[in-house]
């Protein structure tokens, strides 16, 4: 059963130096508050896994939390490049960043295999691309019935998954709706999980399109109102497009990024 604890305690207990951490949320419900808490607690040597390491991982990478990134698309959506990610890959700043690169279809299927307790997944993908040569976790596999050659990717099994959802009930059952991306798979694929929520309610009223994660597959729940900002939580907030645009200038320069870190992360405490 999931325990409901303050965010700082949850991060401190669940995320350890050297862990493989998957923070998911596909444009919607990105767990920024938890990400900032991980920076604040100065975690190091993390392997960060995420289909779209957008602004949230730009922040973690720039803060020096990561030694490796497993991903399929690293950009600032609607804006442009991720400057901290680029600086890490091109100049090893602040620390070298190893990368393991996939396509969305590959990453999604790696989570599916992890959630399903399988060592690998099969897809039609990568053939003819140069990715297949650069990434060791892409291999051919032959159909035992037709002889057709397809592509295999290994399961993702993060140490901890971190996602944001709209609500939990007092037993720690979690409910999210709108675009729910790959969050169910990320939680089910991981050994431990932290879900930040907009609020805790008495009863989770069924809603169209809602995904429920039963309490017994969640490790900790933390209340973090607006914890997806600058992304959004459908029914609670809208996407802060200006933040994404402003991030381009903040992150372009190491000094201005460092100032942002000091002022917006280290000088503040988790809100719950």
């Amino acid at each position, binding site marked *: 059963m999931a325990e409901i604890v303050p965010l700082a305690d949850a991060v401190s207990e669940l995320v350890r130096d050297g862990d493989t951490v998957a923070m998911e949320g596909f444009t919607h419900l990105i767990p920024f508050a938890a990400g900032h808490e991980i920076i604040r607690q100065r975690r190091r040597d993390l392997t960060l896994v995420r289909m779209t390491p957008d602004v949230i991982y730009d922040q973690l990478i720039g803060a020096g939390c990561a030694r490796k990134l497993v991903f399929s698309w690293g950009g600032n959506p609607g804006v442009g490049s991720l400057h901290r990610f680029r600086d890490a890959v091109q100049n090893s700043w602040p620390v070298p960043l190893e990368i393991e690169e996939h396509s969305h279809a590959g990453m999604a299927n790696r989570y599916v295999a992890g959630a399903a307790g399988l060592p690998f997944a099969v897809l039609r993908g990568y053939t003819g691309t140069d990715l297949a040569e650069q990434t060791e976790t892409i291999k051919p596999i032959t159909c035992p019935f037709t002889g057709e050659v397809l592509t295999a990717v290994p399961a993702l099994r993060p140490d901890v998954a971190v996602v944001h959802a709209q609500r939990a009930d007092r037993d720690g059952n979690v409910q999210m709706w709108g675009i*729910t991306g790959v969050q169910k798979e990320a939680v089910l694929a991981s050994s431990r999980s932290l879900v930040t929520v907009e609020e805790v309610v008495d009863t989770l009223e069924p809603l169209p399109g809602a995904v429920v994660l039963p309490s017994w597959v969640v490790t900790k729940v933390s209340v973090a109102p607006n914890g997806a900002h600058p992304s959004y939580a459908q029914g609670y907030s809208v996407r802060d497009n200006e933040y994404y645009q402003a991030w381009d200038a903040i992150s372009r320069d190491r000094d201005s990024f460092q100032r942002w870190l000091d002022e917006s992360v280290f000088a503040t405490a988790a809100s719950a």
Partner: protein
Amino acid sequence: MTEVTAAPDWSADEMMTVAASRALRDGAVCFVGIGLPSTAANLARRTTAPGLVLVYESGTIGAKPDYLPLSIGDGILADTADSVVSVPEIFNYWLQPGRIDVGFLGAAQLDRYGNINTTVIGGDYANPKVRLPGAGGAPEIAASCREVIVVVRQSKRTFVDRVDFVTSVGFGAGPGDRERYGLRGGGPRTVITDLGVMEPDPVSCELTLTRLHPGVTVEQVREATGWEIAVADDLGTTEPPTPAELTILRELEKTKGGKR
């Protein structure tokens, strides 16, 4: 055909977007990326293809946004979709089996065989000169859709003889490569730029200039292309944007991200 005078009342980008919107058949199911493709697809829904089905990789099937979304995961897409499914499902059940008619892609580099690079430019993979965002959904969109439309501004930096990195396969190194790779979609059917339209030669698979946008010359296209581009014998000219198209496009752009 409208005669084009010195200063048209539309920009080259607008021409590109309008041309892309017209390439979408009514009733087609279209896998839409963000940016130009999304603008073109939403323009088409309001002009020539009211029955166009928009599918976004965020899992929103049949989205009918009443303004231009800023990301592939804006709330308006979920709110207006016929069905919202998980990201694994959108790739596995909807894209991979070849259910999608048209895939819409952009490119940082594009080569003569329509291969696309959105990964790294210059240097090598481990030490690139420029690190780009990477693959996203593009490789499997390029592999599985019945056809692919590429929308991209044309320049020598972008239109290269050979991409530095094949992120998404067009026709590989030429005829027969798609079949060899087992790719089941038809590959790039049309490349639409701010200068004109290119289509693969049915025999050589090389991108061939088939249409110029109004006011653009073959010479301009040659100067913006990093290989000796072939020109179709029956080279045509794109109809300029109609006033209605321009009005709707400009209204759409104003609503980007829900601003009104």
